[in-house]
C-alpha cells in the first residue's frame, strides 16, 4: 500500500472548490450589506422617521414597562406549557379514535370527526368567551378559575388542529408496515404502539411544533377574560404613556421565547431526515 497522494487534478478540484466557497461567502456578505444599508437609509430617511422612533422605540418607556410585561409573559409561559401538553395529548387521542377500524366503532369515529370539524372551524375568541364568561354564569359549585377555563378553551381549539396533524402522520405510514406487523403476530394495539405511531410522530414533528409556536401567541387571548398577559400589560402601559414602545418590547420578548422552540423544531426535522436517509 502506498500512502495516498492526491493527483494534480484532485488538487485543482479542491482548490477550485475552496475558491468558489470563498467567493460565494463574499458575494453573500456584500449583497446583505447593500440590502441592509438601503433599508436603513429608506426607513431612517423617511420624513416621519423621528416621530415613529419616538412613539415606537423609546428606551426609557421600554425600561419602565419591562417589569410589567415580563410578569405578563410569565403567565404566557405557564399557560403555554400546560396547554401544549394538554392539546398534544387530546390531539393524539382524537386522531387514534378517528383511525379506528371496523363498523362497531362508527359512532366513536363520527364523534371524533365532528369534534375536529367543529373546533377547527370555531373562532378561538368565541370558544374563550363561552368558556370564560359563559360557563361561570352557571354558578356551579367548584367552578375552576378563569385561567383553567381559558386554558381548556385553548386545549379544545388546538386539540382539533393537532388531531388532524397526528391523523395525517398515522395515515402516511405505508399499509405494508401494518400488514407486516400484523403478520408477525402483533395485535392492533401493539402495531399502533410499536410500529405506526413512532413513524407517524417522527414524520409530523415539524408541523406539530409549528402549531405549538402558533399556540404560544394565542395563549395571550385568555386576557380577554381578565388575567393580564404580556400583550395586555403592554396595552396598559401604552394607554398610560400614549407610546407604543411596550408593544414592540412584548413582540421582541415573544420572538425570543419562540426561538428555542423553533430551533428544536429544526433540529428534530434535520435528525429525522438524516435517519430516513440512512446516513
Amino acid at each position: 500500500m502506498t500512502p495516498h497522494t492526491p493527483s494534480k487534478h484532485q488538487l485543482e478540484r479542491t482548490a477550485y472548490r475552496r475558491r468558489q466557497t470563498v467567493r460565494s461567502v463574499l458575494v453573500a456578505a456584500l449583497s446583505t450589506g447593500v440590502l441592509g444599508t438601503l433599508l436603513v437609509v429608506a426607513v431612517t430617511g423617511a420624513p416621519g422617521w423621528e416621530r415613529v422612533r419616538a412613539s415606537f422605540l423609546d428606551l426609557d418607556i421600554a425600561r419602565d414597562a419591562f417589569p410589567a410585561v415580563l410578569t405578563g409573559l410569565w403567565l404566557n409561559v405557564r399557560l403555554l406549557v400546560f396547554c401544549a401538553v394538554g392539546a398534544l395529548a387530546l390531539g393524539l387521542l382524537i386522531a387514534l379514535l378517528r383511525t379506528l377500524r371496523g363498523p362497531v366503532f362508527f359512532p366513536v369515529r363520527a364523534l371524533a370527526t365532528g369534534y375536529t370539524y367543529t373546533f377547527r372551524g370555531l373562532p378561538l375568541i368565541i370558544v374563550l368567551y363561552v368558556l370564560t364568561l359563559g360557563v361561570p354564569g352557571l354558578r356551579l359549585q367548584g367552578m375552576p378559575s378563569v385561567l383553567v377555563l381559558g386554558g381548556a378553551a385553548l386545549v379544545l381549539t388546538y386539540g382539533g388542529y393537532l388531531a388532524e396533524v397526528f391523523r395525517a402522520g398515522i395515515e402516511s405510514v405505508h399499509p405494508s408496515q401494518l400488514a407486516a406487523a400484523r403478520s408477525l403476530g402483533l395485535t392492533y394495539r401493539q402495531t399502533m404502539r410499536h410500529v405506526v405511531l413512532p413513524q407517524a410522530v417522527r414524520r409530523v414533528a415539524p408541523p406539530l411544533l409549528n402549531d405549538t409556536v402558533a399556540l404560544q401567541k394565542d395563549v395571550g387571548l385568555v386576557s380577554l377574560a381578565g388575567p393580564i398577559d404580556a400583550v395586555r400589560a403592554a396595552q396598559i402601559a401604552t394607554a398610560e404613556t400614549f407610546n407604543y414602545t411596550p408593544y414592540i418590547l412584548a413582540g421582541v420578548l415573544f420572538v425570543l421565547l419562540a426561538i428555542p422552540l423553533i430551533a428544536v423544531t429544526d433540529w428534530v426535522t434535520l435528525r429525522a431526515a438524516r435517519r430516513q436517509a440512512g446516513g
Partner: protein
Amino acid sequence: MARPSTTVTRLAATAAVLVALTGCAPEEPTPTATGTPAGGSTCTKESLPTRTAGKLTIGTDDPAYEPWFSGNDPTNGEGFESAVAYAIAEKLGYAKEDVVWTRVRFDNAIAPGPKEFDFDINQFSITDARKQAVDFSSPYYKVRQTVIALKSSKIAGAASLADLRDAKLGAQVGTTSYSAITELVKPSSQPQVYNTNDDAKKALQNGQIDGLVVDLPTAFYITAAEITDAKIVGQVPQVGVPEMFGLVLDKGSALTGCVSTAVDDLSRAGTLTELEKKWLAQVAGAPELT
C-alpha cells in the same frame, strides 16, 4: 466558473427597486392651529344678549335622568345638574322665575347650527371633536371613578378604600378606572382587565370579580337599568386626567365668557363641591370612600 456579471446585474436591480421605493416616501403634512373662544364683557342680566331679553333659556334632554335631575322636571332645582343650572343663573343675576327650560335632544345640542337655548346642561363631556361644533363653558363637574358590586358581594358594605384591599376588582383596559384601582385602592390581588365594560359587567354578574370600577354616570346607569342586583359601593378620590362636564353654548356665543366666569366663581366658592356632595353622594347614594 461563475459569471460575476449576472450577480452584479441582480444586485443592481435590487438596488434600483429599493431606491424607487424610497423615492415614493410620503410628504410631511403641516399641522394647523385652531383658535380659542374669547371671553365676554360685563356679565349682568341687563347686558347679556340672551335669546329672550331678561330671561335665561336653559336646554336639557327629555327624559332628564336621575340623579342629574329629579322626576324628569328640570324646573324644581332638584338633582345635581338642575341645582347647578339655577346656581349659575343666580350668579348671572337671574331669579328663579327668569329661568326658562327647553327640551333639546342630546345629539342636536352638540350638532353645529343655531341653538334653541342660551346654554345646555346634559352631562356633556368636553372633547376636542365637540369643540369644533359648539362652545363649552369651564367644567362644572369632574367625573369621579366609582366602585360597584353585587348586593350579595363581600364588599357591598365597604366604607373606605382599605375595605377594598382584599377584593378582586375589575376595570376596562386603558381607562382611568384601571388607574384608580392600581393607584388608589392598591389591592392585594392583581386586578382583572377587560376589553369592554360589557365583558367586565358579565364577570361581575358571574361573581368572577367582587367589584367593578367605572365612572359615576356609568355606575348610575348600570345599577339602575342593567344589573339591578348591583349597588354603588362608593366614589374614590380623583385620579389621573378625569373626564369633565361642561355647559354647551352656540359656537362663538357672546355668553360663553360670562357663563364660564360664573362657573369658575362657583367652583372657587366651593358651591359646586357642596352640590356634588348633596345630590350625588347623599341623595343618589354614592358615598365617598377615603
